[in-house]
């Protein structure tokens, strides 16, 4: 059973919370379908991790919205935020259900992959090891997009997610990096991500 952590109010803006919930829920759907079509357990697990995060955000958002409402007019317009947030939460649950198809080893028949679009696109997740040649480099320095046509779509740092990170974002040891690209680029990405200062040679 997944462990459910304690949750306390933190002064985070409603705007940041709803934005993260929306972005995460959409990313999760993409990742989850991909995990199901390519039977990828690591990506499915990442989706479950995100689902937990969205659950937490949902609580936080409700708390922030309650504090923000001062009069009936506020309440009317904030309830819209709360409804959209709960929809994003539902979407993230739906993505979790897709991930469960993989994790419970039910699987999806390969024929489904042919019928769905975007088959040329691959997604992957890699963990940045201690001593990785990528550690402490910014996305700009890594030039993944120019070198191998791979885009970093999210970075997980412990339980926090940075979605669509900016170019000056640093990759740190211990980060989980989620990337999107063509099959060849993704293969290279996975190979290079595993290199450490010792194994990289020259």
């Amino acid at each position, binding site marked *: 059973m997944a462990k459910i952590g304690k949750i306390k109010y933190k002064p985070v*803006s*409603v*705007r940041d919370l*709803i*934005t993260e919930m*929306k972005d995460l829920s959409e990313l999760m*759907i993409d990742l989850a*379908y991909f995990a*199901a079509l390519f039977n990828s357990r690591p990506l499915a697990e990442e989706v479950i991790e995100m689902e937990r995060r969205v659950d937490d955000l949902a609580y936080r958002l409700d708390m922030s919205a309650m504090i923000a409402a001062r009069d009936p007019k506020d309440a*009317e*317009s*904030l*309830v*819209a*935020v709360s*409804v*959209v947030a*709960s*929809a*994003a939460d*539902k*979407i993230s*649950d*739906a*993505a979790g*259900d*897709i991930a*469960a*198809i993989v994790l419970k080893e*039910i*699987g*999806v*028949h390969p*024929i*489904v992959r*042919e*019928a*769905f679009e975007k088959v040329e696109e691959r997604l992957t997740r890699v963990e940045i090891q201690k001593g990785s040649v990528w550690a402490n480099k910014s996305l700009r320095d890594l030039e993944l997009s120019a070198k191998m046509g791979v885009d970093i779509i999210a970075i997980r740092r412990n339980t926090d997610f940075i979605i669509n990170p900016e170019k000056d974002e640093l990759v740190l040891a211990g980060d989980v990096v989620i990337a999107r690209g063509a099959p060849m680029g993704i293969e290279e990405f996975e190979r290079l991500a595993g290199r450490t200062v010792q194994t990289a040679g020259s």
Partner: protein
Amino acid sequence: MMGAKESFKDIVDMLAELKDTSELMLDLAYSSIFLNNKELAQDVATLEEYMDDLHTKFELLVLTRCITPEDSKDYLGLIRLGVVTEKIADAAMQIAGVVLRGLEPHPVLRLAIKEAEETVVHAQVSKKSPLAGKSLKEAQVHEETGMWVLSIKRGDKWVRPKPDTVIEAGDHLIVSGYAEGVDDLKRLVNSEKRMK
């Protein structure tokens, strides 16, 4: 005897349609909030009914198969994916419901959706339009306007836009893209048969 592949094909195609429809609904729902547009929200509601029917058909279709124990997991995976598309559609309906209930969307929602430069419009194809009778591939809507056809509403039906889908006079096109393309689009769906 039908092989697994043939017996799957119709089911998988229907699943792909469920998935596409659920994603279209989500796009439209967020756009309806962003633009505070009841017409788009109403489209989501119409699609929701369409989805319900389609999902029922899908599940019935799966149940018509005599499934052997070895195949059962494959079919379970499909059924689960079908349920997921339905959940996403429900979530989209929930979002559109905000607009249909006349709640003024809070400014932070616009910021969260941040499609500032993009818009979604409805456009009905007139009899005189050069698009009428053309396939989407021939119609070159994107080349002419910079906008993409998300979906086609034909009477009560929703048609998935594929390159060989033929546009008919009277069709409602749901089109998204940069606001600059809207005038070109309006011209295209209404004008006499003269195109540059």
